[in-house]
């Protein structure tokens, strides 16, 4: 038992040490970039805490999602794809056939699956998709890099192109998407998180 105590203390200490080591250097750089992140289009300002290397979960930008339409879900998780428009600006109903499930969202047949958080040098990307059966009816970016005005711009281009109930994701039904020019890294991270979500869903 003495050995177990020793092991537990040792691991706790080294975990703390690892975190401190990673948190240590150039925090100043992150802090500098912070002010630029106060941007329009997102409900919550991004804090330094969630700017990089976060695990698979929805960060502040995703806050509105759960409350909207979870309640009617028996067992399986649902959320209305319409709510997926939290930050996907455009193209609500281009194709009626696609839009239909989204209006019928509260029905328990809509499933929502989260992709993991993928980080690149600009920030984190996390994608969630909504499905009826195995069909993707909506995609949404819960988080996109927006630490600087420039990356915010790129992000919204990617988002407009891919997300929503009529975006490229819904059209293609796969993560096989054309790269948005000028936003290669974000496109790639988007596809990676999306692919993982699709793999999970199927």
């Amino acid at each position, binding site marked *: *038992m003495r*050995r*177990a105590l020793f*092991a*537990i203390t040792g*691991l*706790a200490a080294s*975990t*703390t040490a*690892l*975190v401190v*080591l*990673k*948190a*240590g*250097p*150039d*925090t100043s*750089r*992150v*802090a500098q970039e912070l002010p630029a992140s106060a941007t329009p289009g997102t409900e919550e300002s991004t*804090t*330094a*805490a*969630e*700017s*990089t*290397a*976060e*695990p*698979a*979960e*929805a*960060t*502040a930008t*995703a*806050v509105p999602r*759960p409350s909207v339409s*979870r309640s009617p*879900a028996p067992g399986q*998780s649902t*959320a209305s794809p319409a709510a997926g428009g939290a930050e996907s600006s455009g193209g609500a109903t281009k194709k009626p056939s696609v839009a239909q499930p989204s209006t019928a969202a509260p029905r328990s047949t809509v499933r*929502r*699956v*989260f992709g*993991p*958080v*993928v*980080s690149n*040098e600009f920030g984190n990307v996390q994608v969630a998709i909504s499905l009826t059966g195995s069909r993707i009816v909506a995609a949404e970016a819960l988080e996109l890099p927006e630490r600087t005005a420039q990356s915010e711009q790129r992000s919204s281009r990617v988002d407009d192109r891919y997300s929503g109930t009529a975006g490229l994701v819904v059209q293609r039904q796969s993560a096989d998407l054309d790269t948005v020019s000028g936003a290669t890294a974000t496109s790639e991270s988007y596809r*990676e998180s999306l692919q*993982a979500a699709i793999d*999970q869903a199927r």
Partner: protein
Amino acid sequence: MTHPGTYSDRRTGAHSRSGGRPTGDLLPVVPRRGCGGRRLLVGLFLLGLVASVLPWWTDTQAGSLAGGTAKLTAAGQISGLLAGYLLLVQVLMMSRLPVLERVAGGERIARWHRDVGATLLVAVLAHMSLILVGYAGLEGRSPLGQAGVMLRDYQDMASAFAAAGLLVLVGLTSVRAVRRALPYELWHATHLAAYAVLLLGFAHQFSNGTQLFRPGPVRTGWIAFYALVVAALLYGRVIAPLAFNLRHRLRVADVVAENPDTVSIYLTGARLDRLTMLGGQFFRWRFLTRGCWWQSHPFSVSAAANGRWLRMTVKVVGSHTRDLRDLDPGVRVWAVGPSGTFTAAHRTRERALLIAGGSGITPLRAMLEELPPGTALIYRVRTPSDVLLHRELDWLAQARGVQVWYVVGSRDDPGPRQVMSADGLRRLVPDVARRDVYLCGPPGLIEQSRQLLRRAGVPRRQIHLATFEL
């Protein structure tokens, strides 16, 4: 069953001629083995520990963990990786893989398993609470609300929570005081839930683990480790025992009473000349007869390998051992082993001192055949009738030059008190500090002896313990 008086009536097989003593030539002294293998195992374990956290280290950009919640989540990720690794190590240690049993020994592995188990429990609880608090902070919820969201909305999290619940159950029932209070079978059945933990906890690592969801070497490596552990389980728990038992086809030959509450069970089988085991080792035995087949119990062999029969000497302490008295000859026996490093091969010095208490004599009796002349044996018993295998010990004293002292009486009698002191030991065995000491008996005696051996100057690594506890 027979009592010593009628001993000769029912003896069968080879031992009838020798009264249980090894027939034929004296066995050669077993050469010593180093402890290099064990160090290698520990080294590999530590290497794996580092390797399991490495993906986090390389994935995380320096300076990215600025906020408190980010730090909590990061610590949650690390503890998750550690917990995942430790869980696999735990199962691997229980795989009965022959190489592990040979290098580390079943009893030492059981001790490691207990320590790593406590660590694993803490790591899992830390992982859960850190991730919950971290995520809750990021999403602006209460940790409890966050748990609800994760259960409903995250892939594979319901089963992960179930796995954690089971693991806590397994961990808590293994706290020594709780375990003592439970019937062994109930505890054991609960412990089997650990396999369900392995299964239920599997998926969430890959759907939600930041380091593991991506196809790539890390994910592949992690899955490969899982596959390795499952393969080890299959081999150690199924294939190796199957091969062993098909080869040797053990059966009960006879059950002989040694004293009113102790019996010796003799086994015969095929190709026993090719059975490699050492005195002091044990098997897990399953007697395939009504009422017994569903339990497997560890017993040491009480005679060294002789190519013709095996023997265990069993003290009746509970329901299973009581049933064993009534075994009929011919009953098939399923054995898993041999196991244990409480053997002559694991000594660090040439000479040895053995200290036995009560039925703890059984493994030592087998070892005596394999230790060099000059070995000393101190045998602690309450009353003269508690002395087991008396004739064999006397025979070994002669044939192998073993000095035997029977120390009879209760702990507070003057005789035992005098012997069981540092001075007493040194008087009996002047070179005790230069010997390996093997202790086997009730926990009280072992602890007492261990302390006075340390006082008598015996280095820790020369002291070997067998407590009949796994």
